[in-house]
């Protein structure tokens, strides 16, 4: 598809959508959202890019193969479960680092579920883009 409007709009939208997907991923920590939805939005951004500029351009933009991205995400997800090991807890038991603000109240809790969510995000992006790539390269 060769459309000036689509290409111009995609240039703007791509960054916005990726930023929005990361926001959704981060928001999922405590509120609705998360890795799966975020991953979907990010994959749509890249798929839009593939539609506007072709699959080759998308691959160049992505740098790594989507299937490797999927594997990497899976590894990250598994890794997040291994943090439970040193304390002698079963696989996937969450670990937290809690930051406090000046007044001593809890400000931010970073935990292994975030890592797991990033893993999910990468798996979703990788899987969807692998499908998009396979379907668009066929014809």
């Amino acid at each position: 598809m060769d459309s000036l409007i689509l290409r111009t709009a995609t240039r703007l939208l791509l960054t916005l959508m990726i930023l929005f997907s990361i926001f959704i991923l981060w928001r999922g920590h405590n509120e609705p959202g998360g890795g799966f939805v975020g991953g979907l939005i990010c994959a749509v951004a890249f798929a839009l890019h593939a539609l506007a500029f072709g699959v080759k351009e998308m691959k160049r933009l992505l740098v790594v193969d989507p299937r490797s991205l999927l594997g990497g995400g899976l590894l990250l997800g598994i890794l997040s479960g291994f943090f439970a090991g040193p304390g002698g807890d079963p696989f996937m038991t969450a670990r937290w680092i809690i930051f406090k603000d000046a007044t001593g109240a809890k400000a931010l809790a970073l935990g292994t579920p975030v890592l797991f969510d990033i893993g999910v995000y990468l798996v979703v992006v990788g899987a969807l883009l692998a499908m998009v790539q396979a379907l668009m390269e066929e014809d």
Partner: protein
Amino acid sequence: MIAWLVASPILVPLTTAALCAVFWHRPALQRVLSLGGSTLLLILAGLLLARVMEGGVQVAQMGSWAAPFGITLVADTLSALMILIASVMALAVAVYALGDVDAVRERGGYHIIFQVLMVGVCGSFITGDLFNLYVWFEVMLISSFVLLSLGGTKEQIDGAIKYAGINLIATACFLLAVALLYGVTGTLNMADLAVRVPHVANKGLVSTIAVLFIIAFGMKAAVFPFFFWLHAAYHTPAVAVQAIFAGLLTKVGVYALLRCFTLIFTGDMGWTHGILMWIAGATMLTGALGSLAVRDLRRALSWQVVAHIGYMIMGLAIATPLAIAGTVFYLVHDIVVKTNLFLGAGVVRRLSGGDTSYARLGGLFTAAPILCVVLFVPLASLAGFPPFSGFWSKLLLVRAGLAVENWAIVAVALVTGLLTFWLVGRLWAEMVWKSNPAGDALGTASLGGAARVALVAPLVLLSAITVTIGLYAEPLMRVSAMAADGLVDPQAYIDAVLGAVPTTPTLVGAAEPAAMEVQP
């Protein structure tokens, strides 16, 4: 750390699959990873079984969420034994794949999907949660669908579509049964279900749910009348794939039946186990007759997969400790023999020019005498010749049948044994004794150095296992009896799951657990 050992049958193949996916463009490295992962799985499965034999049922609460709320992984003797035998098959097939799986299939992600399939198989064996079991069934279904269609010939796609179609129906039944059971009891933890199901007032509904489970698992196990997809799908994909399918996938269905109908649905045994008894008889007979009706080695073996599922269901339907022990023994024997036979049929196919119909076979003894001796072991074991493993497993089941004076099922089992004996005689005559119609058959030397080792070594290993089980049946008999005791009296299983106190999640940075509570 025991919780980690219990989780390892899922973690090891999953990590292997993830690593293979990262190195998508490097098939050589994937081969090494696949072999390494399978070896590690075998070692850990051995450790797990040793641990279970020594210390009883081992339980792991994932993420420290206490049963019955979180996902529980449970390793009792049966689970640990099944995982050990599955990991032996995984290693044998991973070695065979080195010589068998072509470059196109490797680039299509064969090693990754194979490892994912092992995740599904091991997950089904180790989980203690019914919905989690459903998830592992899905993992198996998706990966086996990919493995079936990998290669993309017309015949394969045809088989894969039938396979996916029938499995979608089975999955729908499974999900429906799970939902109904949850509606009735409010739990899906198997041990918790075992406690609650007997107290459900609506007995009719429980029996209905039980029959839905028989349909769902029966389709997976390819019992009568749900076996028609099996011979349509099993002879089409790569040999390594067929072997793991024939060896393991249907047995996961049998395992699920065995677990559910000894632990959860034991209230109305006259009804549920009566149905299972009919299914067992019909499965044995149709499988054996079907295998005699076709004139192709691999198709005949596919039908034999069906026939021998019948024996295992028969043991489950009789449900005495001896019969259950017989079923467990049969599971182990059959997994080894079927994987071996399908791998062997793959080698025979290569030697006779890519075709396994009886018209093209023959002259194998002059061409490859040692291969014939190696193949004789699983064939003889299939027919139940003493002293191979098939003899002991059939003996156990027949004795169990005689003990409860169920003459009909014993007669069916013996007739099926006789028909199988007939089939083995025919296969031997067609494959080994008859002179080859196309001139001389090729010897194993024609496979080429490295491929020859990769293709024949697993056959030798699996035949050696069959001979060992046959000549020295005592250890496996003891493990089977232990597994049967655990199934017939599941109190230890229930206590281990529900009584296990999980540790509270530890907080790094803030010692007080209250920090995680939501402040009003």
